[in-house]
């Protein structure tokens, strides 16, 4: 790997130590999660002066615990470990996570971590979109202690996020939604190695009468610098009974929220067109989980 200046790889045992090391090395320090995106970052010229890597695998951040209405996922949980959580299969509201993990090559899943996936802050990734769909927030540890940042506010641009100098992600919090909630994820890109042309996570909560109490739609892939909420679509669903016609209608509204990119893989026009299709299908899948 292209780290010609790298002098040390630290394996601290506590968050405090991490914070100290981050302070000590300033710009020259980089947190190491699974390491699967370091090549991606260095190929984009984003890691020129790294002197110290801080491997956080020994911090004990490898837990997945539902407690008090919140599911906490440690930053070091690998994609594989996450995928194996029985809750992911059992709880329909976590479906979006399960679906999002399906597309990724095993070797990446065995190494890549939840923290690394969020901290990379690339809208092309799948897992951040899934976490955002679930109203996730990250806990950042730093010199001033811990703070919670909602994912809706976390992503600031490609490779940019709300972490301040000296902070790192310790865990992700997911609020457990009402019982009748299900979620799903779809990705447009068949190729196992390639990142999404467009992906979408949706979540829906039904009230007792079968009406949509709350809906969440998040788009990732080539949608811009950060994942994008499909608010118009959410609004179109809320308070109504989600049937085929309504889903169709709601999916038509996504154009209003999306201003996707055109690149060598697809045009903005195509991305908009499939956004509608994917949203509709994702909601269908999610709703099936509630039946």
């Amino acid at each position, binding site marked *: *790997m292209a780290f010609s200046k790298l*002098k040390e790889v630290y394996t601290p045992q506590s968050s405090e130590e991490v914070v100290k090391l981050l302070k000590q090395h300033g710009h020259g320090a980089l947190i190491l999660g699974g390491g699967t995106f370091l*090549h991606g970052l260095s190929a984009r010229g984003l890691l020129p002066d790294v002197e110290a*890597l801080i491997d956080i695998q020994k911090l004990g951040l490898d837990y997945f615990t539902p407690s008090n209405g919140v599911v906490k996922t440690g930053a070091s949980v690998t994609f594989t470990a996450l995928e194996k959580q029985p809750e992911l299969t059992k709880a329909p509201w976590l479906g979006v996570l399960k679906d999002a993990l399906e597309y990724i*090559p*095993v*070797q990446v899943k065995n190494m890549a971590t939840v923290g690394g996936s969020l901290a990379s802050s690339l809208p092309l990734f799948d897992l951040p979109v899934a976490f955002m769909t679930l109203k996730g927030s990250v806990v950042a540890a730093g010199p001033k202690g811990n703070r919670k940042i909602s994912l809706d506010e976390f992503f600031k641009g490609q490779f940019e996020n709300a972490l301040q100098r000296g902070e790192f992600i310790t865990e992700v919090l997911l609020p457990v939604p009402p019982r009748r909630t299900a979620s799903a994820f779809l990705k447009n890109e068949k190729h196992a190695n390639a990142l999404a042309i467009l992906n979408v996570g949706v979540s829906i909560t039904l009230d007792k009468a079968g009406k949509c109490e709350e809906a969440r739609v998040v788009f990732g892939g080539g949608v811009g610098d950060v994942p994008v909420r499909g608010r118009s679509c959410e609004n179109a669903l809320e308070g109504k009974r989600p049937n085929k016609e309504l889903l169709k209608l709601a999916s038509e509204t996504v154009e209003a929220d999306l201003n996707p990119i055109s690149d060598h893989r697809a045009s903005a026009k195509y991305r908009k067109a499939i956004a509608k299709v994917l949203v509709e299908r994702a909601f269908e899948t999610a709703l099936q989980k509630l039946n």
Partner: protein
Amino acid sequence: MKKILNLQVNGETHEIAVNPADTLLHVLREGLGLIGTKRGCDSGGCGCCTVLVDGKAVYSCMLLALSAVGKSIVTIEGLSTDGKLDPLQEAFIKAGAVQCGFCVCGMIISSKGLLMENPHPKEAEIRQALSGNLCRCTGYHKIVEAVRIASAHS
């Protein structure tokens, strides 16, 4: 500055000096002479460098050697014992899954990772487990067949 570390590879502990930035792939090939693990891209995706770390298939080109300390690493050289091939190796020969052979060690290691967890995978599961391993010669057909043969024998 080089660091001395102990790596546990194929059941043996090796003491070796590495640069902090050295990947496990680099150390296996250049340091320990375990050239069965191949470098096809050095950037993740081709799978030629796949090894097992604590029983899980990973790209050794994406793992720093320093991060592999204290873990159990298995390379293709660790699969056969006393000249007796692993059933997967036998099956790859039998099924005609070897052409140029450059991808093959990575393919076998990924398959091993799969079979250790799921001894009787369905075809779709085999294909999914190999999605991080590229082959340009075989079209994967006989490779999938080989994994099926090996799983039938376990």
